[in-house]
């Protein structure tokens, strides 16, 4: 007797892959559907990222069912058959051999192919390639509002008939047509049509379909405004001036706007620290929470506003279409140094983090171009350097945001110049050869999409907070322990001061002596702690750069990750802080070394700034360099070369300022 089939009770998740050419508004469309539910995930072992969202499309389409769908926004591609990492990731996703981290690798249940109504002929080529995958497909013709303004009319019924699958006309920007998308995706079906398999055949097929489904009632007029803007933004002199002005303005805004929320965060962590110190009984637990956890994490989280603003403003800038023009300005700049504009995206990504930047070099076709870019990428100022730059520029130019912005821009410029020098040197010695020329689509100028920029900012901010709450928290606790133990007994000098204080009548003078005794004990305890001894051992190496024991510890700890410098300094100075109600940043800025003089003098601050711009202080970057370049010799070359430049730069900055009579 056969057992009756039990209905499936567990709701099934449908995987829908979102594909299309670059610059077709795919991500804007995805963000409109998924909103804050989306998160960014990497494809394991690759450079590529995808936005993933678990959403209920039935709910979106008001049908009332509750089957969840996993929407995967894949990288934009021109063709599945190009020898590029984006095309490979898309192919592997369609074959079910890879998936973004956290998602099961499986053949997608449906494809949502986004095409640009204003450039339908070229976009239909990728549709033809995707139809050959024989998967249920829906075609979303985006930017229909722009097409209409240009006098282009697309007949969705005829297009659906030609392609053999459902077609929807929409505008991701205005929301037009999107209400029907959920229902349409449920009706996705395998096309009964097939496109030719050869490139020429597909191009003719696309042209024939375009001629059938589209009409244009206006003669294409010359786009004079775009022409003028392009000429200005790619002009040898004007283009470079615009680039410098835009980037300076961007960083100035970051400093100006981030100051207020930074003060709030700083005040909040300072208040919480004081409250915990006053509430908990004195002892190791209180010290751990106040000096380890709150000082360490607070010293890093304070930079969240800057990091969010940087990503937000860069996303807005990218949304305007300007960055593609900037790539050509950079191409002109890079070429004499042995790199091409192909390096622009990896180098720009490296300003967020060198790791995705180095991985993105896979898109560079020429091997020598690629190796040169890998070696140069860590010179670009990543977000991990931002906390250090902010701290040091604030110490150098207190209450002068414009000067801080200049110094900040200068840090980026020094990193870029060091990278150019490195490329110039290596392309004429160990990596001889000419770089490949660049070709890039220039998207239309438009108003940036605020929602997409905000979602990206939220995503990046959460990644930063997660790092502060895990790795930086763990390192702060370990550093606190190394800084607090072994305990040192009070010194004879402090005992004598306390005895003297006890016999005094004037309470104010007595308190002053007790404070002096506390400071002596704290310095003694820090110097004799494990961290203090470690710093003392290595300090002679950094002495010519002006670094004392505590700065040496800060620099050594930065090998785990650069931003750890600020939390390390916060943990080290927390115990020796003479002013209890100071904020975290002020505590670091006013910290003193063993002889009572300030740690962050004008000369040491400049020396540190140069050191952090140029040094290869990131273990994961070295690992990725070894993996992507095909050997540890390149990683070791990178480490040795960057350390040498950093040491020379910091030494020169310190010694020149001291020789000029600076402090």
């Amino acid at each position: 007797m056969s057992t009756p089939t039990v209905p499936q009770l567990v709701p099934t998740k449908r995987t829908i892959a979102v594909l299309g050419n670059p610059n077709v508004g795919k991500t804007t469309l995805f963000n409109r559907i998924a909103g804050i539910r989306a998160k960014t995930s990497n494809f394991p072992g690759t450079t590529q990222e995808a936005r993933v969202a678990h959403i209920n499309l039935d709910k979106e389409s008001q049908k009332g069912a509750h089957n969840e769908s996993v929407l995967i926004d894949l990288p934009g591609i021109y063709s599945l058959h190009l020898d590029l990492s984006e095309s490979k990731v898309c192919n592997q996703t369609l074959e079910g051999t890879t998936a973004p981290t956290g998602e099961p690798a499986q053949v997608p249940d449906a494809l949502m192919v986004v095409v640009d109504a204003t450039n339908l002929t070229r976009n239909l080529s990728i549709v033809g390639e995707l139809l050959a995958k024989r998967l249920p497909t829906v075609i979303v013709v985006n930017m229909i509002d722009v097409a209409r303004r240009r006098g282009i009319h697309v007949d969705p019924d005829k297009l659906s008939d030609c392609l053999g699958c459902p077609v929807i006309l929409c505008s991701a920007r205005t929301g037009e047509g999107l209400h029907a998308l959920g229902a349409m995706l449920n009706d996705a079906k395998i096309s009964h049509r097939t496109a030719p398999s050869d490139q020429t055949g597909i191009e003719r097929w696309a042209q024939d379909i375009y001629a059938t489904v589209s009409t244009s009632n206006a003669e294409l007029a010359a786009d004079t405004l775009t022409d003028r803007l392009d000429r200005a933004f790619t002009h040898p002199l004007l283009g470079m001036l615009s680039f410098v002005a835009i980037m300076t303005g961007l960083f100035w805004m970051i400093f100006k706007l981030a100051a207020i929320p930074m003060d709030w965060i700083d005040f909040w962590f300072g208040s919480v620290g004081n409250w915990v110190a006053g509430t908990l009984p004195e002892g190791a637990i209180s010290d751990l929470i106040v000096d380890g956890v709150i000082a360490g994490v607070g010293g890093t989280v304070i930079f969240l506003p800057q990091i969010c603003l940087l990503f937000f403003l860069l996303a807005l800038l990218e949304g305007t279409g300007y960055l593609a023009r900037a790539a050509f300005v950079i191409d002109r700049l890079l070429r004499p140094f042995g790199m091409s504009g192909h390096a622009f995206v990896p180098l720009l990504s490296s300003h967020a983090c060198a790791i995705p930047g180095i991985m993105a070099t896979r898109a560079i076709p020429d091997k020598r171009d690629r190796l040169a870019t890998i070696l140069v990428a860590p010179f670009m100022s990543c977000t991990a350097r931002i906390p250090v730059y902010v701290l040091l520029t604030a110490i150098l130019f207190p209450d002068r945001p414009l000067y801080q912005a200049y110094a900040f821009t200068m840090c980026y410029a020094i990193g870029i110049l060091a990278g150019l020098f490195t490329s110039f040197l290596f392309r004429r010695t160990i990596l001889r050869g000419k770089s490949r020329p660049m070709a890039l689509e220039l998207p239309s100028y438009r108003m940036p999409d605020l929602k997409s920029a905000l979602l990206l900012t939220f995503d990046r901010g959460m990644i930063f907070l997660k790092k502060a709450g895990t790795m930086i928290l763990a390192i702060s606790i370990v550093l606190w322990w190394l800084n607090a133990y072994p305990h040192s007994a009070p010194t004879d000098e402090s005992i004598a001061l306390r005895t003297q204080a006890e016999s005094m009548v004037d309470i104010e003078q007595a308190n002053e002596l007790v404070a002096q005794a506390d400071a002596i004990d704290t310095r003694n305890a820090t110097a004799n702690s494990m961290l203090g001894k470690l710093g003392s051992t290595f300090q002679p190496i950094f002495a010519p750069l002006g670094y004392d024991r505590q700065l040496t510890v800060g620099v050594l700890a930065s090998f785990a990750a650069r931003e750890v410098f600020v939390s390390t300094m916060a943990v080290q100075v927390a115990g020796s802080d003479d002013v209890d109600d100071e904020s975290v940043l002020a505590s670091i800025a006013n910290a003193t070394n063993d002889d009572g003089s300030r740690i962050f003098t004008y000369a040491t601050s400049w020396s540190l700034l140069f050191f952090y711009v140029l040094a290869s202080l990131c273990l994961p970057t070295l690992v990725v360099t070894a993996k992507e370049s095909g050997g540890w010799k390149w990683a070791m070359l990178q480490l040795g070369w960057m350390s040498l430049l950093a040491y020379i730069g910091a030494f020169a900055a310190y010694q020149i300022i001291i020789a000029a009579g600076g402090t």
Partner: protein
Amino acid sequence: MINSEAQLESKAVPLTQLSRGQIGRIECTQAHPDDCSMLRAMGLHPDASIQMCRLGEPCIVSLSGACRIGLAKDIASRVFVHIDS
């Protein structure tokens, strides 16, 4: 795709010889195979209509008024076109 010299029709000229605003039709591209594949996927395929928007470095072209492509002068000089009369 590397097209041999023999395939080039005599009237085809390098793209860089188009003046600003002039329209042509792509004949072929003589470059590294990876560059040829990329350009073709971007829409610079044989018989595509192409208009010169900016000469020099970079060279900016419009494809049937639908999209703009920026090309380094070096690669633009390897794209051969028939100038529309």
